[in-house]
């Protein structure tokens, strides 16, 4: 019993601007994200990545410009944060059920929850409390909660940022597998350029509120880091990110 493909939905932004009071965070954003694409978003801290993500799934509204995303009208957009934000007093299964929304319970709901938990590799852990899980497993529960209602658009805001390096590698593979199985459109913010290239069909770089680099990643999956093609893409992004500052690049 595993989850059926849900398919993705497109997102389109035309000359989008977002300001908080006088603080203009995003400006002149033009993006066409086709259904089912995995988009990685990178950029320095504070450049507006989270803000862009929140706009695209309807948690914030644009100050100017046009944002068109069918998933918003169908309430089929979900988000996963860096912190899993699980209810500590609810079992794994009940936490996933939160994703089904009001008044969804009974056998059908149980089956959906079980299927998605199977999909993220948590079969048999339904009854545990979040405090009994590792960080990686908690984030899987958060992913299952976001996916249980079969969204066509999934935003991920540094979803693996709090995990240790080894768990990250596991979770990247899991994320890629789930995305390939279900087919939703994925928008992932990350600090890790390697991760952006490993997972994205496309990587965009935000700087000073604008898209300064829009790069297609045409490598076969699953991708191997350390190949010359992979390294070249990484290098291109890092160059743009840090300009000519060799020390900053070295540190990355």
């Amino acid at each position, binding site marked *: 019993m595993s989850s059926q493909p849900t398919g993705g939905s497109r997102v389109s932004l035309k000359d989008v601007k977002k300001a908080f009071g006088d603080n203009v965070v995003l400006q002149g954003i033009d993006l066409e994200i086709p259904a089912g694409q995995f988009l990685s978003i990178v950029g320095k801290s504070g450049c507006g990545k989270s803000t862009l993500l929140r706009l695209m799934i309807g*948690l914030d509204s644009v100050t100017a410009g046009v944002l068109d995303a069918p998933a918003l009208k169908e*309430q089929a957009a979900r*988000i996963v*944060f860096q*912190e899993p*934000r699980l*209810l*500590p*007093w*609810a079992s794994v299964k009940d936490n996933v059920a*939160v*994703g089904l*929304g*009001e008044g969804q319970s009974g056998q059908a709901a149980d089956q959906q929850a079980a299927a998605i938990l199977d999909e993220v590799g948590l079969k048999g852990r339904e009854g545990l*409390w*979040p*405090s009994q899980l590792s960080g990686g497993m908690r984030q899987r529960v958060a992913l299952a*909660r976001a996916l249980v209602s079969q969204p066509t658009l999934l935003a991920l805001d540094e979803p693996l940022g709090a995990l240790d390096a080894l768990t990250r590698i596991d979770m990247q593979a899991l994320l890629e597998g789930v995305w390939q199985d279900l087919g939703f459109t994925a928008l992932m913010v990350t600090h890790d350029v390697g991760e952006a290239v490993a997972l994205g069909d496309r990587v965009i770089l935000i700087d000073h509120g604008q898209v300064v680099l829009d790069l297609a990643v045409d490598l076969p999956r699953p991708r191997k880091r350390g190949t010359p093609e992979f390294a070249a893409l990484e290098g291109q992004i890092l160059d743009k990110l840090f300009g000519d500052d060799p020390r900053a690049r070295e540190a990355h």
Partner: protein
Amino acid sequence: MAATASEGPLSRALPWLVPLALIILWQVSSSLGWLPPNILPAPTAVLQAAWLKLQDGSLVDNLGVSFARAMSGLIIGGAIGFSLGLLNGLSKRAEMLLDPTLQMIRNIPHLALIPLVIIWFGIGESARLFLVALGVFFPIYLNTLHGVRNVDPQLIEMGRIYGMNNRTLFLKVILPGALPSIFVGLRFALGVMWLTLIVAETIAANSGIGHMAMAAREFMQTDIVVLSIVIYAILGKLADSATRALERKFLAWNPAYAKV
């Protein structure tokens, strides 16, 4: 906590050794006549008094009266404190309106009101109920307010994103999040509850354990006085154990309360 303490029967008996030794010392001192019975009666004398009071039914009657008083005061004061704590925790405006006044009143020791309470209510049942209710009100109010205020805002945002309405948000996120703090309040409240009841029954009552002790004092029945003290101790311990059991049931998700 001793890291090396094992789970054997010896370590389980350990906490009881000192009390047991004290009781034996007490019994021996009484039997040898070092402790005159009009100062402190022997443990066996206290047990004998308990047996007598049990047989004539007065112990059970007084116990019932005290227990009912404690519980009614707890329920009344606790319910008001809980409701106001929720109200002020959920509504900033209500908090601004009510909390400063409550914080001011909180600084008055409630037992200082006894003379006034006697003038208002006489020495009847309502006076004692008022004092107990007032005493338990504050710990419950303060800790409920604190618990609601400190629910993780990220969880609340998560609930909203997943479309929870206010009712569901309250029942699934805010109330469970505030529960550990509410239990802290309940424990404090239980302590205040017994203390207030002892004082109230000792000063003005014609039934209850406190009255039993005061009546015995007039006739220098030290065994019954000591019996009353022991009963209060047992009641306090029982209330505490009951709270612990509730905590273990309702806070099982929290590693700090999980059954060891």
